[in-house]
């Protein structure tokens, strides 16, 4: 399911996370699989925890990183799709 600018997201209650040295480890309690997020992914996760929608994430990241809007959009959407596919996050489209 494509994510849109006003897409909101909910982190699964079965996910535990810990940030360390700018990266994040995610644990899915259901599958007992774990995932790693690099510093940019960690920043996205922090914004997910705060309940920001996609447009808000883009705005924050563009202000924080020197990267083109298109590249950013592509990378963030890819990450979110992966998190959704893994069942760690669900999309709540409020368009």
């Amino acid at each position, binding site marked *: 399911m494509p994510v849109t600018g006003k897409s909101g997201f909910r982190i699964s209650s079965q996910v*535990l996370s*810990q940030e*360390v*040295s700018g990266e994040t*480890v*995610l*644990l899915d*309690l259901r599958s*007992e699989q*774990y995932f790693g997020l690099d510093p940019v992914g960690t920043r996205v996760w922090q914004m997910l925890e705060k309940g920001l929608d996609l447009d808000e994430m883009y705005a924050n990241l563009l202000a924080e990183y020197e990267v083109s809007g298109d590249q950013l959009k592509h990378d963030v959407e890819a990450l979110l799709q992966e998190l959704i596919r893994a069942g760690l996050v669900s999309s709540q489209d409020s368009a």
Partner: protein
Amino acid sequence: MALAAEKPARLLNIPLPEPESSICALLRGETVGWPISRGGVSAEAFVERVRHHGVPAIVLDRLRTSGGSIQWPREVEDALDGDHKASIALDLLRSHHLQSIFRLFAQRGIRCMLIKGEALARSHYRTPGARIRCDSDLLIRPENIIDVQQLLSSNGYRIVSSTYKSHQFSVVPSDQTDVTLQFDMHWRTLNHPEFARVMSFDELWSDSVPVPGIDGARMPSAIDALQLACMHRLGSTSHDPHRLIWLYDIHLLATSMDAEELARLVEVSVSRGIQAECLDGFSRAATCFGTAVPDVVQSGLRRASAPPSWTRRLARTHLGLLLNDWKVLPDGRSRRRLLGELFLPSATFLLGRYGKRNRLWLPLLYLRQVLGGAAKRLTLR
């Protein structure tokens, strides 16, 4: 809090082999060139030694905070990073289960403490995941053994070991298919007869402190935890007493104590008759990590105890421990199970232990088990 401002005397300096020497130098905060230039240690072999010593996360942290002054092969850092992330994930899962377990215990009024690495990971390490451990150690009273087993068995856990002969039983989540999590429920602090009765549950409980991050959980005080760490590393022939993570525990505990606590440590160590074990732990930690041990502490720990009474000497033998096990276990059923585990284990266990498949071997194996058990347990060693 700070250690007494005395210049520590030079302790016995046992040279370390490579790569342990380089690992320790790194953890002392020194800038260390890649060890391969000093002894031909490959990156793979180096990582394996770091893993053996249980210090991947701590070494990684030091590499990353060196400000670029330490340049080691990328493959070393990547391997340690993988280990650290796995440890963090495992710790998240472990913490989740420990919280459930302590909640169950609280509902039933069962007192329990986290001990050893599981406790220290939460009290003395930057993050619990930095203190790698392969299981979680908890301490309960002997009279709570059956209640704990019934409670955990009816709440998603299963028992995967004997209960009495090693003074502990292990539980794992019921749906676990491989060894990821294991919770060892000890009813004595240590298994070795020399140390098993040095500290009772009630003694530890009376000075215990809350465990950060696990609601309702308690752990031994720093003094008790340090003594436990010193005894644990010497209490078994099946493990390496010079494993660096155990010495690092001692280092962190010792350096977190002020002069008053260190003085109290000496006093309690002498009264418990374990000052030699504590001195050995301090000495080794000083060699590896530069742990500052004030003169007054060293001289205090070198003090000889009064000669032990015959009852105390007996208490520290296999036979003495068995007699006391018999005494502290709450009922006849527990005592019968103790004897059964020691001298008459299951046929499956015996066949597996001696690598046999044919049940015709059993009479001979049982005879061997009984004689061997008697030779080990019914002695004044």
